[in-house]
């Protein structure tokens, strides 16, 4: 399979050989940027975080004092806040997103599928700072007027809803996050469900199942891993989301399970304090970044493995718009 055809003169063919080699080296250099970036990110964060890693060790993750004056740093409230806001977002977004995905693959009339799918995915095109703006001036007033009073009247005695509502709150952050991750979860689950072989559906229907039973007992179990991957992908987005959260969560360094009170997340604290931080506080913020990077890395890797198992090779859900 010699590609240098015999009718070419030898100087030309040697130039062609060179061309191939140079071309491959150039492309390899571009490709090498990605692993180099990854290593530089991990290395840079770790080196910059080293002062607080050495000073506080594992206590950094478990204590909740964040005091730039006394130079004592503990990240427990923001780790907890990140998990709580993301969990809240999942609780709100997953049922909706799965409902949308099932509707679009199973029930919607053909002409409606593309427009609705496009519109839902358009949510992913809205910049997060616009979500934050909308959260401040539309969602929070809405919560204050119509949601919080009845919610506290009924459930105010539970730790989740006790406390004073100032506007900026864990609930506002969780709701904004839910809207933001919904298009990702629904788009990926839709593609996963669409990839389920029609024979699964037809077999269930042929056995006398209703359309819903076919979905519930044949389609969903078949796509389980992929749907789980879609959810984990959404979780990854929620964990790292910064601007929308920093604008509505209140940024208070408190460890509180109350959803109506202000909270803080890892991404939010970096956005909020980095430009004013120096010395050990800056190192602490780098360590927060390192922890966040590690968590999102693990979550995204898991999501990729789950989705890859269903739709091998193709980057499902990479289309944002």
């Amino acid at each position, binding site marked *: 399979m010699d590609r240098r055809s015999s009718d070419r003169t030898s100087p030309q063919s040697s130039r062609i050989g060179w061309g191939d080699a140079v071309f491959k080296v150039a492309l390899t250099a*571009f490709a090498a940027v990605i692993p180099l970036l990854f290593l530089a990110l991990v290395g840079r964060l770790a080196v910059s975080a080293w002062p607080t890693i050495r000073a506080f060790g594992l206590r950094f993750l478990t204590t909740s004092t964040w005091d730039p004056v006394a130079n004592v740093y503990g990240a427990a409230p923001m780790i907890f806040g990140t998990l709580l806001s993301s969990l809240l977002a999942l609780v709100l977004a997953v049922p909706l997103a799965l409902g*949308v995905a099932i509707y679009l693959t199973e029930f919607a009339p053909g002409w409606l599928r593309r427009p609705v799918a496009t519109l*839902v995915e358009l949510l992913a095109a809205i910049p997060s700072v616009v979500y934050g*703006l909308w959260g401040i001036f539309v969602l929070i007033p809405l919560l204050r007027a119509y949601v919080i009073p009845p919610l506290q009247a009924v459930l105010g005695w539970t730790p989740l809803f006790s406390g004073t509502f100032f506007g900026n709150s864990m609930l506002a952050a969780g709701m904004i996050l839910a809207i933001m991750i919904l298009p990702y979860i629904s788009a990926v689950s839709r593609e996963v469900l669409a990839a389920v072989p029609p024979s699964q559906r037809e077999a269930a229907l042929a056995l006398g199942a*209703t359309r819903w039973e076919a979905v519930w007992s044949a389609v969903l179990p078949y796509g389980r891993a992929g749907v789980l991957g879609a959810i984990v992908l959404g979780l990854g987005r929620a964990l790292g989301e910064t601007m929308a959260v920093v604008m509505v969560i209140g940024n208070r360094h408190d460890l509180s399970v109350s959803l109506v009170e202000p909270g803080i997340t890892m991404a939010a604290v970096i956005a909020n304090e*980095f430009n004013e931080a120096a010395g050990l506080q800056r190192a602490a913020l780098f360590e927060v970044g390192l922890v966040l990077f590690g968590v999102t890395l693990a979550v995204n890797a898991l999501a990729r493995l789950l989705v890859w198992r269903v739709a091998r090779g193709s980057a499902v859900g990479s*289309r944002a718009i």
Partner: protein
Amino acid sequence: MISGLTRRRLLSRIMTGVTVLCAILALAPLFAIFGDLVVRGASSLNWDFFVKNPAAAGDTGGGVANAIVGTLIIVGVGSALGLPVGIGAGVYLAEYGGGRFGVTVRFLADVLTGTPSVIVGVFVWMLVVRPMGHFSALAGGIALAILMVPMVTRTTEEMVRLVPHSLREAALALGFPRWRTTAQVMVRAAWPGIVTGALVAVARIAGETAPLLFTALGNLNFRTNVLQPMQTLSLQIYVFATGPFEEWHRLAWGAALVLMAIVLVFGLSARFVTRTRFRDG
């Protein structure tokens, strides 16, 4: 027996209705946000809005000319740095990416796509801003380029992979060397798709804020020097929305409408490129 079947059919109906409800609920925030953007944003758009810089804090009037120009410059810098690398890496993965190195690059690209953008911000601060001694639009562009590379890599790879194998075989059979086959046949055939991926990535970074907080920083004045701090629409919205003045809030909505329009222009032109391609094919 019959009542059991009726019940099951009823359940099927109900669950179908529930999924319809889910779709409506999912679309509600979209319409709410776009509605608010248009209603509140359009009322603050006027000639001054596009040609003036922000007024002094507390004063009325002023515009976001500096932020509009700044957004275009920083996104331009980011694209100029990020697109060639991303497209090159994507072509590599499609053409030579079968080995262990290719698998690693692909996996890391996917993982980096999910990296919180604020982390890229602090990374570039350490890498560029600190050595330079000051914030700059260039640092902001570098941060955006880092966000673009993994996205563009993966879409480019997919698009080149979609090109039929027969085209490659035909080119090789005609005596094309491999590199010309890749560059002039495969990449050219995949080009509309590659452009689509690039436009989607540009749309995505145009709305980014977090990576610019510690790199481009923002600037209340009109600046075109990329070595100086520069304003973008996203940074402007953040400052105005979290500030105390009514006038700022008004400008924030206007800026958000303009930013959304920029993002949609890139996003929709991406769709348009794909559509023309399919029509031709």
